[in-house]
């Protein structure tokens, strides 16, 4: 068989005794090549620069900042430098002695002398309240009086607020008197520090996040599976239809993209609620008793139905784009070799759609794991996901450190899953379109 084997060297290049190639005018070939390619490299770099700057500025930087915020802990160090120093010799058991309280007084006085905007006690109050309820009140109320305290300071402080007499507050001050903290991650894992400083699980009635993480993952898996089950046949049908019909059907698939969230949400409510279309139809047809109407919204069912609807296109599009490229001759070849249609599908067609299934699955899973608007609107109590808690900490409780810790855990979780996917399937086989 004739092999086109083009191995001919450039005839203008001469070979030195050492084996290095030189150009016709004697410069080393490699450096000449580099010079020739430099211009192209610069052009390429200039072309990607805007996007690079955009990604750095609006993606990498905010994420880095979020991760930084999850461990950043400047409040105690900034507000109570003297107290922290005095606390170094404290045994951590009883209420500290006069020396510590004198240092605390000095810190309050120093803070009162700062310009109002630079004062550190407000942020400190907010920070300590994350660890101990009512600590905010203790700090902010005391800060108004402390300037006028006189020795012995210990009694004055103990009189001003009951919390100063609790060793727990002091343990927290000492523990959090470091510029970096793990406290947000400890809280994000439903754990807390006990009196000895070791990490233990929280009271059962304050555990939320671990359970929410697990539920979020389970719901995302369910949603991914449902979009696959619903999307695979649609994508297959789309891929074998002539273009003009397939684009019409594609519009139906893409419809959720083009309707506003509120319209979609109202539609689901109209359909799914107890007095809604589905329930009323079933009751009207006599298939269901009026007293036993099924709750399909404001719970996990609602979230799963709504999110499957929204995310279906993310499964269908990659599948469709992969299936379009599978020529019908593969199935024909398999049949001509004696495979039944089902064997041909299972062994020849289906394996070739795997890159599309992988891409769609990863896409749907990652999007659904971070979704929060829809669960908030139709999820009720059982259909909430971890992102709803993150959003709450970002917008309402303003505990950005905890939100950042939860967000970072979510991000790392997604990256781990992606890495696993890459190891098992290979990311280069992803086909998005």
């Amino acid at each position: 068989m004739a092999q086109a084997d083009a191995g001919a060297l450039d005839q203008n290049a001469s070979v030195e005794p050492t084996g290095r190639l030189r150009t016709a005018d004697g410069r080393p070939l490699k450096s000449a090549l580099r010079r020739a390619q430099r211009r192209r490299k610069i052009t390429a770099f200039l072309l990607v620069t805007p996007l690079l700057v955009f990604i750095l500025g609006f993606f990498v930087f905010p994420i880095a900042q979020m991760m930084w915020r999850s461990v950043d802990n400047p409040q105690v160090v900034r507000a109570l430098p003297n107290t922290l120093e005095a606390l170094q010799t404290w045994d951590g058991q009883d209420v500290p002695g006069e020396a510590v309280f004198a240092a605390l007084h000095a810190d309050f006085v120093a803070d009162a002398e700062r310009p109002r905007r630079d004062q550190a006690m407000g942020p400190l109050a907010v920070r300590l309240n994350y660890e101990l309820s009512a600590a905010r009140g203790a700090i902010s109320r005391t800060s108004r009086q402390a300037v006028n305290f006189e020795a012995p300071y210990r009694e004055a402080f103990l009189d001003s607020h009951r919390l100063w007499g609790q060793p727990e507050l002091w343990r927290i001050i000492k523990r959090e008197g470091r510029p970096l903290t793990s406290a947000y991650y400890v809280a994000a894992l439903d754990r807390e520090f006990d009196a000895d400083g070791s990490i233990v699980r929280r009271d059962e009635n304050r555990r939320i996040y671990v359970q929410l993480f697990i539920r979020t993952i389970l719901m995302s898996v369910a949603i991914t599976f449902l979009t696959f089950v619903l999307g695979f046949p649609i994508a297959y049908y789309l891929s074998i239809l002539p273009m003009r019909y397939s684009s019409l059907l594609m519009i139906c698939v893409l419809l959720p993209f083009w309707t506003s969230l509120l319209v979609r949400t109202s539609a689901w409510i109209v359909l799914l609620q107890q007095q809604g279309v589905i329930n009323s139809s079933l009751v009207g047809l006599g298939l269901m008793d009026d007293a036993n109407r099924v709750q399909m919204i404001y719970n996990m069912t609602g979230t799963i139905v709504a999110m499957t609807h929204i995310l279906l296109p993310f499964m269908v599009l990659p599948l469709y784009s992969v299936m379009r490229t599978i020529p019908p001759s593969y199935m024909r070849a398999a049949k001509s070799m004696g495979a039944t249609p089902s064997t041909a599908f299972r062994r020849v067609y289906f394996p070739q759609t795997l890159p599309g299934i992988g891409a769609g699955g990863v896409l749907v899973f990652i999007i659904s794991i971070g979704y929060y608007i829809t669960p908030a609107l139709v999820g009720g109590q059982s259909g909430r996901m971890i992102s709803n808690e993150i959003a709450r900490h970002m917008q309402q409780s303003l505990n950005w450190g905890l939100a950042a810790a939860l967000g970072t855990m979510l991000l790392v979780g997604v990256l781990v899953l992606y890495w696993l996917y890459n190891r098992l399937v290979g990311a280069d086989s992803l086909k998005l379109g």
Partner: protein
Amino acid sequence: MTFKIKLAGASAAVSLLAMGAAQAQDPVSLTIVSWGGAYTASQVRAYHEPYMELNPHVTIINDDGSANALAGLRAQSQAGNVTWDLVDMLPSDAQLACDEGIIMQIDHDAMLAAAPDGTPASEDFLPGSLGECFIPQIVYSTVLTYRPDAFPEDNQPSSIADLFDVENFPGRRALQDRPGTNMEWALYADGVDPDDIYDLLRTPEGVDRAFAKLDEIRDHIIFWTEGAQAPQLLADGEVAFATGYNGRMFDAIEVEGQPFEIIWDGQVVEWDGWVVPADGNNLDAVMDYLYWATDTQRLADQAKFISYGPARASSAALVGEHADLGIDMGPHMPTAPENYFAPIVLDNDFWVDYGDEMRERFANWMLQ
């Protein structure tokens, strides 16, 4: 935004020329942050428009940023670029902002108008409503609303206790997905006097007692997140009871004609009002506006446009008819005597101190 300001400046400059240079004042534009929607509209009609008529050199720009007011104030303060002049926010957030030093402290009697009869501001505003940095405008309340057609005519609910009585008042309840109001009502329905509720909630036993009471209705609850959901759920017949802000419920009943009834028993009363960002650029103009916009008549005027009660005692008598609907607003005010018989005044200190812990327990309770 800058474009808008420039335009406003230009128009002010034009009117200035027309007026003649003699009595000219420097044009100033104030960025006032509020909640948007009907609420901002009521402020525009009661405060902003009349004030700009009186003071042609002032242009007021509305910014609907109150939902994230605290975050916005923090960001502007840290950046050293305060663009907000006046912010409408909740007292609990105002307290945090005040502690952080990013909003101004207010000397109430010096900075605010006295009542027409001479009562100083600190005494005229409803008790407990003024904050260190906070000037209340309105009283609003979270009330329980129900559908009369969900119950027989001779057995209509009338109290918060009925919300927790699933046997006599079956049907689902729409509650907000946060501990506030729900925990207060749980204790109130369990027989605790409104004045003792927060003392009890500061103890672990009190919290356990509230959750035990909430457990009784857990299977009958639908939680809502957005304010508009509660009246909608009630209107669709999905629930028999719903909690909601009295203003929204007023709209649903009087404007949309929904057949709801409000139970004023145990209404949870809260304030909403102004704070002044520290280091703003137009402090003098803001203080002038604030003095005028918080006087007795102005607060009474706002009630013409929305069913929230004025925060001054002296304003109550001046509350008239709704400007568009022609309904006498007096009986719809949370502060009307016939409604204000068993109020629970929201304790912001409690929620600021214990809010995180309560929210965690509530979230955990919802997960069960």
